[in-house]
């Protein structure tokens, strides 16, 4: 009973502080909305109508179907259909198009069991276009191969012209995973904005939770406010528990308001279960709160806290696939992405919000996040320094 009262006070205090700092309260919601607007509209434009050229070296129903698929996708703006691969490459080099999609000469020959190799020459000097074309094209052909039943269509070679930084030999499975999203874009009506919103919300919660814990643990320790609580007969678990619940209430609330805002302001459609989306928000928030507690458990000031979390949270923002699909990044970043919890939050939120995935589809994400959360909490609580 008395512990409940203490926890209620910790929640009440944090909410009162927020309420009494109107600018802080406003920027809490303004920040993610500005991010969505800036990136969503700033980048959304370049993702449609990327000029490409298609090189067909055979004729037949499969080629026709492929052409229809490419043309039907708003990502591509098919400038020309030619037959000479070298000319296609030249067009990329001269900047007329961003990519040349070169179909092999045995493309329409169903009797030919040898490998069918599609080559895409990409202008990798335009990072953004390249980063979108590669996975989208990969996915497109994956879809085509499934639908049309070309079993042998397995390998895609991407060669880049101007700059050789395009991921060659990217793990095929990875690409397939990421492409699902872009495929949906082809056949559903998903824009970059839809892609961005779940991850921006994930990222906002990350920063909110981590910095928030820094403020209410490291900051309060520094200002002696934590000492005031520990002066009373109150256990570490009550204080830490109260702080966790308080932050969780705030950040989940913020996540829900942001989702509503995204629906109202940007016309986002949530395809999956709203309930599951909210549960994922809570799980993500818990995980990041745990991270915040782990770091703030032993540091004595907010400054120290910031110094400790910055090297982890800033890269997390860029590597965890908030702005681009992870699979478009260099392999080393991809490996790093898999050890960052934000990656799993983004993946799960996107799967539910965009593809309408259920728990069965995202159970790996959930298990990994639960694991991170348990680890952070265990370390945070055992390491927590009661001395103030």
């Amino acid at each position: 009973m008395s512990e409940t009262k203490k926890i209620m006070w910790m929640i009440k205090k944090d909410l009162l502080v927020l309420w009494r700092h109107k600018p802080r309260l406003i920027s809490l919601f303004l920040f993610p909305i500005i991010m969505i607007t800036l990136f969503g509209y700033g980048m959304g434009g370049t993702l449609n109508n990327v000029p490409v050229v298609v090189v067909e070296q055979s004729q037949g129903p499969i080629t026709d179907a492929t052409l229809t698929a490419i043309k039907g996708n708003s990502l591509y703006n098919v400038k020309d259909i030619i037959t000479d691969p070298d000319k296609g490459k030249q067009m990329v080099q001269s900047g007329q198009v961003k990519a040349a999609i070169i179909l092999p000469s045995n493309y329409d020959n169903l009797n030919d069991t040898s490998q069918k190799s599609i080559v895409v020459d990409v202008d990798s000097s335009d990072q953004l276009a390249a980063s979108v074309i590669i996975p989208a094209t990969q996915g497109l052909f994956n879809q085509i191969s499934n639908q049309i039943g070309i079993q042998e269509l397995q390998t895609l070679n991407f060669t880049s012209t101007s700059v050789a930084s395009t991921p060659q030999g990217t793990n095929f499975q990875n690409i397939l995973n990421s492409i699902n999203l872009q495929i949906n874009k082809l056949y559903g009506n998903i824009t970059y904005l839809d892609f961005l919103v779940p991850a921006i919300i994930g990222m906002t919660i990350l920063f909110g939770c981590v910095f928030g814990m820094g403020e209410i643990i490291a900051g309060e320790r520094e200002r002696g406010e934590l000492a005031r609580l520990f002066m009373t007969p109150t256990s570490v678990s009550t204080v830490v528990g109260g702080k966790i619940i308080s932050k969780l209430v705030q950040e989940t609330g913020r996540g829900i308001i942001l989702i509503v805002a995204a629906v109202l302001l940007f016309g986002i459609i949530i395809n999956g279960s709203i309930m599951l989306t909210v549960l994922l928000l809570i799980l993500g928030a818990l995980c990041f709160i745990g991270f915040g507690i782990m770091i703030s458990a032993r540091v004595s000031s907010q400054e120290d806290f910031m110094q400790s979390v910055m090297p982890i949270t800033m890269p997390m923002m860029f590597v965890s696939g908030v702005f681009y699909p992870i699979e478009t990044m260099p392999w080393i970043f991809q490996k790093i992405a898999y050890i960052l919890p934000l990656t799993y939050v983004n993946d799960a939120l996107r799967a539910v919000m965009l593809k309408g995935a259920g728990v069965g589809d995202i159970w790996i994400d959930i298990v990994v996040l639960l694991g991170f959360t348990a680890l952070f909490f265990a370390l945070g609580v055992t390491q927590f320094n009661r001395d103030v």
Partner: protein
Amino acid sequence: MKYAIETFDLTKKYDEFTAVDALNMKIDNNSIFGFLGPNGAGKTTTIKMLTCLIKATSGTGNVAGYDITNNPNEVREKIGMVPQLVSLYGDLTVRENVYLCADFYGLPTDLKISRADELMELVDIKYAQNKLVKQLSGGMKQKASVVASLIHQPDILFLDEPTIGLDPTTKRVLWDLVEELNSEGRTIILCSHDMYEVELLCDGIGIINNGVLAAFDTPRGLKDTMIKEQKELKSTKDSNVIKIMEELRKESSVEDSAAFDKIKENIEIRNRDLKELSVMISNLDENMLNHLNKLPSIHEIVEHDSGRIVMDIESSDESVNQIISAIITNGGNITSIATKDPSLEDVFMSVTAKKEEEGVDNE
């Protein structure tokens, strides 16, 4: 339970640095104990250990009858603490802060409300109860902090430099409060730099320096020790002078032994107990001075002007009586009278300076 606080080799180390070194103190129940020491001496660290805010590196202590290492929560129930820096939530109002503390001590709602009102009235902060703490002046903040620390009616109250930077009126309010709390039977531990405050309030004093307890006594006891030490120091110095002079006389066979005897006599008189007496007499005149000059208990008139006379007198109660009655019988009109004892400040300076020298020797 005879002692409010007892420590047993209480020690706190920060890495290699020893902030508090094997502290042994016994503080009587229902006393006001002054804890003095220069900045960085280890006062706050000691108080934090006693209030179970930090763990001792070694040693332990009993506070309010409970062991600080094994029963910290029992200790916490019994004590209150006003920290050196006000640590209330700046974005909450005074009343909210007080209620928050009350709930953390598990007070029932009716007690919480009645005590908050009572205490806020007592220290005169109720008029600002709905202001955010960050908007208050230093003195008001300190009052709010005191209210928050008293809400659970602790047996022992720790005050860490509570009156620093406060105006005289606010200081007075806090001093009165300390005396009132003490008269209700509570023990007060007062960390302070303000010698006047300590002298005014405290029954016992501990002086800590470089983490070591350098002196522990009543204010009177400390001063007496100091007077004795000063006298011993003076007399050894003086006897050295006499020795040298005697040797000089032997060697050079100085004839003027009268002059020598005079010096020797002077030194010996000085070594008798002398203290300074300063009297304001509105009608001080030559006649009065002559009379006073004849009194045997007055060793020397140090200075005098139209209304004030300062003299070195024998340090006994009779000598003061004698001088006063002499002034009165000669028609003197005394407006004020003061003797100069060594102040607590002198004791403080001497104890901390001495220990610093010793500390250097040890290293």
